């Protein structure tokens, strides 16, 4: 506020000041009677208005600011303003060890924490050249958690999308399903979100002994919840009336704008990185790549439902394999493997007392290794890699550069929400303002990932 003067004659703190005049009259709608505002706007005799929708708006899927130029109810121009959740995660990662990086990237897209962790760890492993040494059990658990995460993420996309068009039952039913999956995550990783469970070289720890039974026991409920949601929405005339032919984006548009994920698959192209560039052993699982041919919001809804069911198929295969695959969940190289001997104590999860007894009492070398790994971290050979995974929103990729030190030299995340949001203008211009909500919801952007 140094070079701006506050105009005392104006009582609207957010309105234009004399030093920066607005183009046309500014109306501030912050509660109050809409009829008054509408009448005041009508008195101008001008139909073309610019509306700031967001950044705090219940229907913009997060702190997304949509700048809409309206002619009556028709959107003539749509632009996105982003950056409200920028937290500098990538910059912060340059000041932590390679292992600590997981704690940061898991917080980007808060609905798909395990995908960021997996993409980042796969990239670190590629830089280290230990991709083939990651134990099979660790890869199976990664796939298991990622697919459960896909169900919860698609579920939230459908639930919040429903809420945004006024279908509150879809929201409450959707969040009930999400709760079942978060319970599994809490049981396995200790946290409902932001797990930092997948680590370079494997996992923080093995599954608890009760986990497989718990997941098996939850699957019928999860399946029933998905089925209920489908019955509620798929052929619902209100849903179809709002979603069919809305948010249209064809294959050429997707290619030009870099759009991936369910939006790309709704054009009929079976593009799925789990098939095309398998990682974590995806080539050994049976599942179908779901496509639709309508290129609209309704097709994307159906794809999300089908993908949730395909994810359940993969989860079941993972559970069967886990029962037959014992073994470590961390690479054997003690120069990389973080001490993963954790146990539940009276004050929560921490290093197991047995491990502390061993390193403090009997093995000087183990103590040195533990100390060096935790304070200093391991070194990663110099070079750069690009590792992509198929997140629920599309291609989530990490560009990781190492200068041979104990910290990432540069970590850049190609977040699918960030790229897909660019399609808002192509999807919304020329449509009704109510369709903007549906189009944005069908892109399913998560602002934590967009802004990082």
């Amino acid at each position, binding site marked *: 506020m140094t070079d701006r003067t506050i105009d005392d004659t104006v009582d609207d703190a957010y309105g234009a000041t004399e030093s920066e005049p607005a183009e046309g009259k500014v109306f501030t709608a912050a509660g109050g009677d809409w009829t008054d505002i509408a009448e005041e706007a009508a008195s101008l005799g001008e139909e073309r208005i610019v509306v700031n929708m967001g950044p705090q708006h219940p229907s913009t899927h997060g702190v997304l600011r949509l700048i809409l130029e309206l002619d009556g109810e028709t959107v003539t121009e749509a632009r996105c303003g982003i950056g409200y959740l920028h937290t500098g995660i990538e*910059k912060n990662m340059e000041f932590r060890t390679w292992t600590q990086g997981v704690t940061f990237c898991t917080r980007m897209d808060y609905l798909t924490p395990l995908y960021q962790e997996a993409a980042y760890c796969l990239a670190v492993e590629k830089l280290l050249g230990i991709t083939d040494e990651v134990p099979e059990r660790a890869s199976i658990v990664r796939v298991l958690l990622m697919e459960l995460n896909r169900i919860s993420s698609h579920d939230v996309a459908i639930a919040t999308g429903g809420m945004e068009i006024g279908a509150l039952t879809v929201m409450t039913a959707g969040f009930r399903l999400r709760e079942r999956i978060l319970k599994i995550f809490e049981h396995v990783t200790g946290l409902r979100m932001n797990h930092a469970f997948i680590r370079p070289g494997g996992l923080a720890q093995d599954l608890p002994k009760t986990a497989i039974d718990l997941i098996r026991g939850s699957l019928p409920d999860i399946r029933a919840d998905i089925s209920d949601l489908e019955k509620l929405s798929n052929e619902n005339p209100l849903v179809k009336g709002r979603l069919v032919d809305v948010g249209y984006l064809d294959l050429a548009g997707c290619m*030009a704008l870099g759009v991936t994920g369910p939006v790309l698959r709704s054009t009929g192209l079976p593009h799925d990185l789990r098939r095309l560039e398998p990682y974590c052993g995806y080539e050994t699982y049976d599942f179908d790549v779901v496509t639709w041919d309508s290129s609209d919001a309704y097709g994307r809804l159906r794809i999300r439902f089908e993908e949730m069911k395909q994810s359940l198929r993969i989860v079941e295969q993972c559970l069967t394999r886990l029962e037959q695959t014992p073994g470590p969940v961390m690479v054997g190289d003690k120069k990389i493997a973080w001490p993963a001997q954790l146990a539940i104590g009276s004050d929560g999860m921490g290093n197991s007392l047995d491990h502390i007894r061993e390193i403090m009492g009997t093995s000087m070398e183990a103590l040195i290794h533990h100390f060096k790994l935790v304070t200093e971290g391991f070194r990663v050979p110099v070079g*750069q890699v690009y590792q992509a995974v198929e997140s629920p929103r599309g291609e989530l990729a990490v560009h990781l550069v190492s200068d041979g030190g104990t910290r990432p030299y540069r970590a850049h995340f190609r977040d699918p929400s960030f790229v897909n949001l660019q399609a808002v203008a192509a999807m919304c211009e020329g449509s009704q303002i109510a369709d903007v909500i549906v189009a944005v919801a069908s892109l399913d952007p998560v602002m934590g990932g967009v802004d990082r």
Partner: protein
Amino acid sequence: MTTNDESGPDDAALATTAPQAEVVAHRQGMFGAHDAGDTSGYGGLVRTVALPPPSVRPFGGSFDAVADALEAALAADGTELGDAVGSVVVDRDEMTLHVHRERLLEVVRALRDEPDLRFELLSGVSGVHYPQESGRELHAVYHLLSITNNRRLRLEVTCPDADPHIPSIVEVYPTADWHERETWDFFGIQFDGHPALTRIEMPDDWPGHPQRKDYPLGGIPVEYKGATIAPPDTRRSYS
């Protein structure tokens, strides 16, 4: 690898002998800590840090096919491959073309349109700042994906800090719009020809470009149960 202005048509892309790797840093001592004496007896140890060296043909796998197709496509426009591509690095099963900035648009257009290449999708653009590489401090890294051929390719374009200009590729890949804005925002690379190169993540009036190495992380000491924890960039670090 040589700097931009030194590289000629017979550069690494066409060379037959293995070129030297570029040394980016020298590290001393055993532990990489800088704030205390090294009592290990290995204080005089010097390690050099070198980027993966440029590769020579054959590159292996399908990388030769990419290089051949690109060479043919550029030749049809009257450009030698060596004029546009300074060097080729194949490392960890990924191919990187170091493209001269003045030829970038030609190269990406060929990569997108040539039937044998068909890199339909630009996955992203990310910046990297190497303050020690004088004359080529700022790198813009482009990640391309060909769905038709199921291949990936990385382009790396450099520009000096004193003249941070790289042509925009929005006209070829419209998706580069936000990526280039992000790279401008975080690194200060100006993409010439971009339709609206404004900040995207930081506020419009933000001073500086936060992801550059000379931009401090910031932070304040935090006191917790009597102990004071320094901000991350002033804690003891190892390299």
